């Protein structure tokens, strides 16, 4: 498991510079993502960026700070506020052999480009055979008091559009390796960066320009024999915190980080449940028809004989993400909720 440091402070946007690796070589998730983009742009002339305020301003979260000075405005293209056209242009440029990476200021705004994403981008290859090397990336998820339009976790919207790969890493190394893999992939990939993680989590991250993490593979972030927690993004960190606390009670939790939700690593999920016989599916998109609903169904159908207890889903209720701290905390699963669920399941 990677070493992590939890930093104080919310994942802000706007004024703060992106920052640098620490003296010991640790990188935040934000820096790891910027490094992935930078290295791929250095490696392959066909890679270019487009999006709103990504040039001189450096992007809403400063991912592309300094890029325009190195790569110029043709490869770091500022666009007007035209989400449909950003996606459509990325598709057209990819059809002609370029490898565009489009930034959304917030993953919430992918809904403004939804038709181009789910109808055009996702379905084009299946109907034509044309490779579509496009990456759409954007900050996803809540937990930073950003309210309804800046906290959405759109994993299920996108995973329900056949043809897309949907990637949602939880750690800096995975973020870097998976983004590099996505840029090299000939399929349209949506890369969801959890904004709660951006500046909060850091770890040692490879500087090898050929470091990639395979898309579609989950990863065990903590070994355990008693209960499996299947999670992604910010929820992985909450699960790890709960697992740490529960270890002192003698409950060993296994934390499986999906890293990619489409395609889903069914094999890894089933292997973990075969070991623990108990599963909690912890996810940040709405409980109703969310990614975890699919995971729970998979476990119930394919691992029924391994199970010693029902599969439990922990996820937000089916309402928009609320603003007030008391409401947002009630909305998002909390570490204490996870601990309670694990205890109940262990006692089954």
């Amino acid at each position, binding site marked *: 498991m990677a070493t992590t440091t939890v930093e104080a402070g919310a994942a802000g946007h706007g004024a703060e510079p992106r920052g640098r690796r620490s003296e010991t070589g640790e990188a935040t998730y934000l820096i790891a993502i910027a490094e992935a983009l930078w290295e791929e742009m250095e490696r392959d002339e066909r890679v*270019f960026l487009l999006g709103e305020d990504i040039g001189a301003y450096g992007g809403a979260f400063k991912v592309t700070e300094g890029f325009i000075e190195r790569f110029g405005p*043709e490869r770091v293209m500022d*666009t*007007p506020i*035209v989400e*449909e*056209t*950003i*996606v*459509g*242009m*990325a*598709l*057209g*440029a*990819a*059809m*002609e*052999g*370029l490898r*565009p990476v489009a930034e959304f200021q917030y993953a919430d705004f992918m809904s403004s480009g939804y*038709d*181009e994403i789910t*109808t*055009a981008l996702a*379905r*084009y*290859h*299946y*109907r*034509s*055979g*044309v*490779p579509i090397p496009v990456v759409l990336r954007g900050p996803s998820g809540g937990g930073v008091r950003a309210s309804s339009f800046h906290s959405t976790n759109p994993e299920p919207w996108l995973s329900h559009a*056949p*043809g897309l*790969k949907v990637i949602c890493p939880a750690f800096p190394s995975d973020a870097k390796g998976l983004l590099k893999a996505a840029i090299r992939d*000939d*399929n349209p990939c949506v890369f969801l960066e959890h904004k709660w993680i951006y500046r909060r989590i850091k770890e040692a991250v490879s500087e090898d320009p050929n470091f990639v993490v395979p898309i579609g593979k989950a990863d065990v972030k903590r070994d355990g024999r008693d209960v499996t927690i299947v999670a992604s993004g910010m929820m992985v960190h909450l699960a790890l915190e709960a697992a740490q606390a529960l270890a002192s009670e003698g409950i060993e939790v296994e934390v499986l980080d999906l890293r990619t939700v489409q395609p889903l690593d069914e094999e890894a999920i089933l292997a973990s449940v075969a070991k623990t016989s108990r599963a909690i599916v912890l996810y940040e998109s709405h409980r109703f028809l969310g990614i975890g609903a699919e995971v729970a169904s998979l476990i119930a159908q394919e691992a029924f004989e391994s199970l010693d207890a029902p599969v439990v889903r922990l996820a937000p209720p089916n309402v928009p993400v609320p603003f007030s701290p008391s409401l947002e905390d009630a909305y998002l699963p909390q570490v204490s909720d996870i601990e309670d669920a694990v205890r109940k399941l262990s006692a089954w």
Partner: protein
Amino acid sequence: MTTKLEPKPIAPEDWRAGLSEDQLKELLYLLKLCRYFDERMEALYRQGRLPGAIYSGRGQEGTHVGVAYALRDEDSLFPTHRDLSAQLTKGLDLQRVMAQFWGRIDGYTRGRDGNSHIGDWHGNRTWTVMSHLPIAYPVACGAALAYRRKGVPNVAMAICGDGATSNGRWHEALNVSALYRLPVVWVVNNNLYAYSTPNELEFPVPTIAERAAAYGMPGVRIDAQDVLDVYRAAHDAVERAREGGGPTLIECLSLRWRGHAGHDPAKYVPKELLDEFMTNKDPVRRFEELLRTREVVNEQDVAEVEERVRAAFEAGYEYALSSPLPEPGDVTKGLYVDDGYWASEPGRGGGIPA
């Protein structure tokens, strides 16, 4: 207020629009092929012999053939389901087009889509059509952006109907194309109705072409009953884009003679209007008459063209019906590049008997 393109590379007094005799004959063949195909496919549809849907482009061949003929092979075309005639002009193989209509493996989408939701990007640089209009307008911007980045003198042309000009993407794409001065030609096939909704219930300005002024690009309005007028305007716009002059909006006026789709009797079109267009503004008949008057073709030449058209259709029909259906087990293949479904069998092959 519409802007005229100055200067025009093709002199307006040149009745041939700079085309050779062979090219004029080729245009006549294409016009007649597209008309004949449209009529025969509708007949087969009404006889219950054609599965799926049809979206007739009849009466609009002047637009379709005229604009697509102005493109080079390496230029790209982003049409709609109404614009199959433009795709045939760009070079699609009629046999494979017909295989698509019957859902066969040899169709361009290998049975993954039907009817005029077709395209051939690898061969003829045409977009595989989608229904959500104008979904391909932004995509044309991206292709054009790539041409500029790669330093190649190619042009992207997109077509949509009057109906799609009310959609936000139409305006986004025009704005962005002018902002970046992209090599794009925007064609609007204004056939006076968006499904059943007439122009006056679609937009509050007299013409679509004048909207170009809002985006800082030239806008031209063409009566599309004469294919050479359309070709001239398209040629000028395409060459202007190729030379770095940026995008142009071309509004081509015609009437959709048939319903929105095969099921629609189009009773909302006044009979007098339809009669006027069918009698006096038929682009196929007008072009044939022009070539006869100018003595480019005689009666026998026309008969030969019509015979070629019939033979091409019959060959396409036989090919389509003898082509296999896709393997049912392949339904999940080719979603991603990863399984090599499209790479291993480029375009055709395999399948089960129909």
